[in-house]
């Protein structure tokens, strides 16, 4: 049935309508279980290749465009992410994971260059420029954090001279994404968050979400028949809001205990009394409005969208029985798709618009399709010397096997032993690994890059483990919070078959890991230098003292009697002499 259309298809479905137009924005809302709400914003702007090359920018922001030109970047993908997508409860990821990144910052780009070195040089210019633009420490993506994936990524755009394109990929798992990254993100939009759906984006709510990811994708799109190309820039924000949390007013964010009369008690319990209350969770969908949830009103549509009939800026995906009231002074239009499970609205110009969903008891729900894979990764063992990584990947489908690429990009101070790599599937004995690409780390020069192409048979679980050793660093190489440990970038999983509907692909990312390293004592470089040198001096002095000097009998030595006694005698004599003189 249609209501089981995957979220991805829905958004694509709506998006398709206006792919041609120069600027288009759209918000898709979808209530998820556990009283959460998925809001995925999508802004797409086009610029014809010619005008782009003439630096005549209309919708694509000049600041970014010039950076791309300067760094000869053909295709760019930049991600800022926080939080975790709970696949067990929420089902498939928005855009099938193709518009999200690992925790922190993730960046990959196809750069045009003659040689690897040139490509890397341009990559550095790109990262530095972007870090300035987005107030993020993207410039810390250096050689040790950069890899050149082989199987995990493929270009989304249509490229002319493919051979000269170099794919580089870097991650910053420890980067804390926050409002200072959102502001420049909004600045890139034509309506700058003043009007249109972008007026809903507010730092406080966005970064209070249980899961949120901001993506920027730039790619060339060529029309096949008349071969004229255009540069397409796509910005998207996906967030999962905890409705109860984000409905809290900003002036009183503290979740104080509700007054007793406001919590519903289970009166069926025998012990239920005025002072005893077993909280009942009434199986109703919570009520909410856009303004409550986002903390700001939706200020009409962005005037830059040229006015055609099929520009639906706000869509909500709920069962048909869910009542959705509109509160707006301006004139808007509602359209329904997919047997009423998808309601879209054309926003009024210059007037506020609000969706009001009352609290409601639901009889039907949308059945959410499972993701192609469930993936979890963790570090086993304890101690700061060595450990082992364990990735558990589950294939929920009962019918078809899943082929995928598993990409690990590890920091150089985490040294995996590839000969301990074991992958086994619980349902079959043959090794699931079909192809391996491994580039070992070089101390202080590059990180480990491991790509595995694997196949999981239907309804079975794959366990991947490998041991690693933790290097100990120079004391200048530790961050200020050395005892917290170091973050290891999430593993990227790309599903190869079943094939994705379009070139964007299907991606799943694990959570990042915390790697505690052995730490030296930072307080005592001088003591160490002194003590070690002392020991060496003792050895050296002792031995060379013996080597260079010559033995004679004790009685032949012209000095006073040796030994403790002799020394004492000499001292006493000296003192006597002094006293005598005085």
């Amino acid at each position, binding site marked *: 049935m249609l209501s089981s259309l995957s979220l991805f298809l829905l958004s694509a479905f709506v998006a398709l309508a206006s792919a041609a137009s120069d600027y288009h924005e759209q918000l898709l809302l979808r209530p998820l279980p556990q009283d959460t709400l998925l809001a995925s914003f999508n802004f797409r702007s086009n610029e014809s290749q010619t005008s782009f090359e003439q630096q005549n920018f209309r919708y694509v922001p000049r600041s970014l465009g010039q950076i791309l030109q300067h760094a000869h970047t053909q295709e760019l993908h930049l991600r800022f992410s926080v939080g975790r997508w709970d696949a067990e409860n929420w089902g498939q990821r928005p855009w099938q994971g193709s518009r999200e990144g690992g925790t922190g910052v993730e960046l990959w780009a196809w750069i045009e260059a003659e040689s690897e070195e040139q490509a890397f040089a341009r990559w550095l210019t790109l990262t530095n420029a972007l870090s300035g633009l987005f107030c993020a420490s993207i410039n810390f993506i250096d050689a040790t954090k950069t890899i050149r994936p082989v199987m995990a990524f493929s270009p989304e755009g249509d490229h002319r001279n493919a051979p000269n394109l170099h794919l580089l990929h870097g991650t910053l798992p420890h980067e804390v994404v926050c409002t200072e990254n959102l502001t420049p993100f909004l600045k890139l939009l034509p309506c700058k968050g003043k009007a249109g759906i972008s007026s809903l984006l507010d730092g406080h709510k966005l970064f209070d979400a249980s899961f949120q990811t901001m993506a920027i994708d730039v790619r060339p799109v060529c029309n096949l028949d008349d071969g004229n190309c255009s540069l397409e820039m796509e910005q998207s924000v996906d967030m999962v809001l905890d409705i109860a949390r984000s409905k809290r007013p900003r002036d009183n964010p503290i979740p104080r205990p509700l007054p007793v009369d406001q919590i519903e008690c289970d009166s069926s319990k025998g012990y239920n009394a005025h002072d005893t209350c077993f909280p009942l969770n009434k199986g109703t969908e919570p009520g909410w409005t856009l303004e409550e949830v986002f903390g700001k009103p939706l200020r009409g549509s962005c005037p830059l969208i040229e006015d055609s009939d099929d520009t639906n800026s706000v869509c909500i995906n709920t069962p048909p029985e869910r009542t959705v009231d509109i509160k707006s002074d301006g004139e808007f239009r509602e359209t329904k798709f997919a047997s009423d499970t998808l309601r879209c609205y054309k926003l009024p110009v210059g007037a506020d618009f609000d969706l009001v969903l009352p609290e409601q008891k639901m009889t039907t729900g949308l059945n959410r399709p499972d993701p192609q894979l469930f993936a979890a990764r963790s570090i086993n063992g304890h101690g700061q*010397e060595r450990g082992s990584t364990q990735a558990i990947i589950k294939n929920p489908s009962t019918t078809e096997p899943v082929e995928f690429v598993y990409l690990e990009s590890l920091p150089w101070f985490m040294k995996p032993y590839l000969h301990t790599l074991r992958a086994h599937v619980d349902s079959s004995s043959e090794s699931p690994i079909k192809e391996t690409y491994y580039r070992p780390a070089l*101390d202080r020069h590059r990180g480990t890059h491991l790509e595995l192409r694997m196949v999981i048979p239907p309804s079975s679980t794959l366990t991947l483990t490998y041991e690693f050793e933790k290097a100990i660093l120079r004391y200048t190489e530790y961050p200020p919070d050395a005892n917290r440990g170091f973050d290891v970038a999430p593993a990227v999983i790309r599903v190869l078959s079943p094939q994705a509907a379009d070139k964007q692909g299907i991606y799943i990312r694990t959570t990042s890991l915390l790697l505690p390293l052995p730490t030296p004592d930072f307080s005592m470089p001088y003591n160490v230098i002194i003590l070690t040198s002392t020991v060496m001096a003792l050895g050296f002095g002792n031995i060379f003292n013996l080597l260079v000097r010559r033995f004679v009998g004790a009685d032949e030595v012209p000095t006073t009697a040796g030994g403790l006694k002799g020394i004492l005698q000499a001292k006493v004599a000296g003192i006597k002499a002094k006293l005598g003189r005085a």
Partner: protein
Amino acid sequence: MAVDKQKALLFGGAAALRLLLFTVFPGLPSLLAGRVEVSTPVTSFKRLQEGLFLYTHNVSPYDGGLYHQAPLLLPLFSLLPNPSHHPFATNLVFVVVDLLSAYALAQVAQSGTAAVSRLFSSSRRDLRWSSAAIAAGFLYNPFTVLTCLARSTSALTNLFILTAMAKASQGASITFTLALSFAAYLGMHPILLFPPLLILLYDARAAKSKTAPSAWSFTITHTLGLTAVSGGLLVASALLTGSWDFLAATYGVRLLLSDLTPNVGLWWYFFIEMFDSFREFFLGVFWLHAASYMPGLTIRLHKQPLFVACTLTGIFAVFIPYPSIADAALYLSLVPLFRHLFPLMRYTFLASAAVLYASFLGPAFYHLWIYAGSGNANFFYAITLVWSLGLSVIVGDSLFAALRDELDVERPELKGKEVRRI
């Protein structure tokens, strides 16, 4: 023949002990291979396995930060069955290596060059232990056993060093050159043993043939021989790995200490705490210091070349970048050759007590630092200081004894009298 029977018993017992430990505690080798006291980044068996894995899968093991050991080990060990499934063959190899080393050591003891060389014969020359006893001292030394169980490749280096000594004391030029260049190829620092052992070889040859060969031609031929063999080894490895990258990955790491994994030596913590601007300078100083002992000792004690070589091994055990208890084991089993010096040594008790305490407290403190998290790096560092101090005191003391011994020969009238150094 009684002695042979007793020797056979000795070696058989040692082999049995090792194999027994291998079979009774199958987890022990991998455990020891992970202990920093036993296996260092340049000798660890686990890293060798990784190198083998990459080598057999046509990835260059030297294009990575893990494998820092000699290339020729790869084809050698790739012949053996995979140790993670069928460890027996590998274990056997290491047991045999130990036995051979002990045999070489016994030969050295047999030759008696410890107390009586061409230009010098100690006044206490009759005070010596039988070669079997000395071999036993090596075979049953717990440090040696641990090294063997950990299957650390420093056992091979030790084997070649001991063989070189044995051949030198027997005057066998070619085998000596081969053995020494292999040792140098595996461990790099053994090259410093060349001069004293060359003198030893020269003495042995002179003793054999009544007419002493000309020193110059002798030196030149052997130096050329050594360079030729070592060069051959390097070229062979280059051909094997298809590039000269291995130089940087093996000797480069030893020289520049890019891997700071803790060990029983003095370098690692020093260079963790060193300021970046001075790193290169101190690397130079440390290497100069480690190398400086060789000329001094060789010149001063040229009459007792074997003693010089032994003392140098002791100095290696303290002052090279990646020492392990294997190096200490080598030195401590060479010392008994000089039984005649023991009566002249003075601080042996202090030193040995220090070493013993260190070998008990070291693992405890390492545990506190790495696993319990309740102690910090200084705990283990302090113990490595004690360990190094203890060993260097033994070295210095034995040196004193040797010099005193020489003095007794030069000036018998001073024998038993107190002496001064001026």
